[in-house]
């Protein structure tokens, strides 16, 4: 896959950072405003996909990137399940317990473990979508060559 024209590249450079930041905002404010881990993770993945589409696949090494994203998604889900299972062994012996203090409704640091779940699920979703995209791109390159 070749890169696109200079204008597209410049605009993408400006925009992808903004999209990335917006994705992070959506993830971290998931318990206050619409959105959450899934929406934000997909937006973050979108920012990377935009960069790859605009600059072409020769800029980065796709295979290294793919193995990194696939390890990232495993790690993120591992943390999610450890967070969920932690309630089983200490606290109140309940699977998926919200064992951190809830705090005040409407504050950024509130709602116990929910923001943590949001962050790690967001990480997992973005990494998984990127893995799927990179897998398809790598396959296409192999077929073309």
């Amino acid at each position, binding site marked *: 896959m070749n890169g696109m024209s200079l204008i597209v590249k410049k605009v993408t450079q400006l925009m992808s950072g903004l999209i990335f930041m917006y994705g992070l905002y959506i993830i971290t404010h998931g318990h206050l405003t619409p959105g959450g881990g899934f929406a934000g993770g997909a937006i973050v993945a979108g920012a990377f996909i935009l960069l790859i589409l605009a600059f072409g696949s020769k800029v980065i090494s796709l295979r290294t990137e793919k193995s990194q994203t696939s*390890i990232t998604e*495993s*790690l993120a889900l*591992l943390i999610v399940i450890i967070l969920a*299972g932690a309630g089983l062994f200490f606290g109140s012996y309940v*699977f*998926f*317990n*919200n064992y951190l203090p809830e705090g005040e409704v409407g504050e950024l640091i509130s709602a116990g473990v929910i923001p943590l779940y949001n962050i790690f699920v967001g990480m997992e979703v973005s990494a998984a979508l990127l893995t799927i995209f990179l897998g398809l791109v790598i396959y296409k390159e192999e077929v073309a060559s």
Partner: protein
Amino acid sequence: MELTPALYIIVPLLGAFLIPVIGHFVKGFQKVLTVLITLFLVVYNIWFFVTGFDAPVVTKVGGWEAVNDVPIAIYLVYDGLSAFILLTICLIAFLSAFYAVGYIKRFTAENNFYALLCLMIAGMNGVVLSGDIFNIYVFLEIAVIASYALVAFGTEKQELEASFKYQVLGGIASILILFAVALLYWQTQTLNLADISVILQEGTQTTALIFTEVLLIVGFGLKAAMIPFHAWLPDAHSSAPSPISAMLSGVLIKAVGIYALLRLFFNIFVITYEVSLVITILGALSMVVGVLLAIGQWDLKRLLAYHSISQMGYVIIGVGIGMLIIQRDGNMTIAALAIAGGLFHMINHALFKGLLFLDAGAIEFMAGTRNLRNLGGLARYMPVTSSTSLGASMAISGIPPFNGFFSKLLIIIAAVRGEFYLLAALAVFVNFVTLGSFMKFMRYAFYNSDKSKAKLKTDRLPFTMKFSMITMVILCVLMSLMIIPYFREIMLTPAVDVLVNTSEYATKLIGL
């Protein structure tokens, strides 16, 4: 430590998430971990049986108690029926995973194979344990998506085509189930199975409920490959790698198809005459048409796949007769006998069909082909495979010392005593056709003239493959013991009780 059903899901999921990370750096880690996980599940399951649990064990995920008797959390329910099916799943999973250690060596991307296997086990365990209809849908999707990928694991032309067919029909089934879940939520405003059951037992049979039931029968019938919906099964089950074929035929169609149908139509909905009649007719059709389609097959695994449809027909007519008798309000002991026969045949079928698929895998491993016309005289080179195949063939065609005989006998006795003479005659007839079909398999594969000597790829099987096959044939004989009252009361009777006492499921759960 307290017994908690949540470990059945946490442990395989942890394995699936660890394998891509650590398996990337450490060689051989994936095999050891998968075998250990499945072994742990089997031991945990047997421990549950030995200590004798106070059924049902209920875990409220998140610890949310019911408000005004309306459950608001997802329940994990571990009762007799779940325990019975979990034992089947974990046993076959352990033996298949151990077999796979030797078999999968030829393929690349072993990490992904074992991770997907763990995910499939977690998905099936989730379906069986769940007490929440939307949760059943979610975990069903984990199991079937993992199996789509595993069917296409070899990435040859046939495997891709089979996987695509499987995905299209499986996807339609999933969407129908989702639509039915939406309709149920519309009618009852709740997702908890026990709560839905309470509402439906009070209310009358509305037309919307009939529509929902039809959608559910079609959806889960597609997953269980009953006869009008069977088109994907022979392709998918014959194209997958052999340990996966054993898993798909042995447990997947039962866990996500038959189990869900049993749970929904016995414990949740009010049993009606129409539904039980439809289920019995579908079962009888599967039984007869499956075996007739199997006769003409020359591809070994395809033949076995068609027999899966036919043997699942036995299970379905067993529970169907039970449903008909319960609905007729007839003799509860006969109903219990029929259901016991069906469930017993379920675990027996998992064992002997799993073993037959593993044998087919061993033949393919050695001879490089699975076309019966090109095989022959293998008995001399593969003593373990031929003797275990003989045992499994005798089990599937109902020859006395093996388990298949007893479960079929139970079903036929129940059919006669419940005055379903036609079904009993059909069951006997199908059994003879099965016997003929497996005599053909044994003759062409093992005892015919020696045609395949020159083409043998390797001269000995890996130890792990032999171990799994021998263990399974021993289990095939040991399972016959379940007909003895002591063992029956430990394993089979709690499962049957859950189904026979249809409304007890809801009443036991709601008060908690």
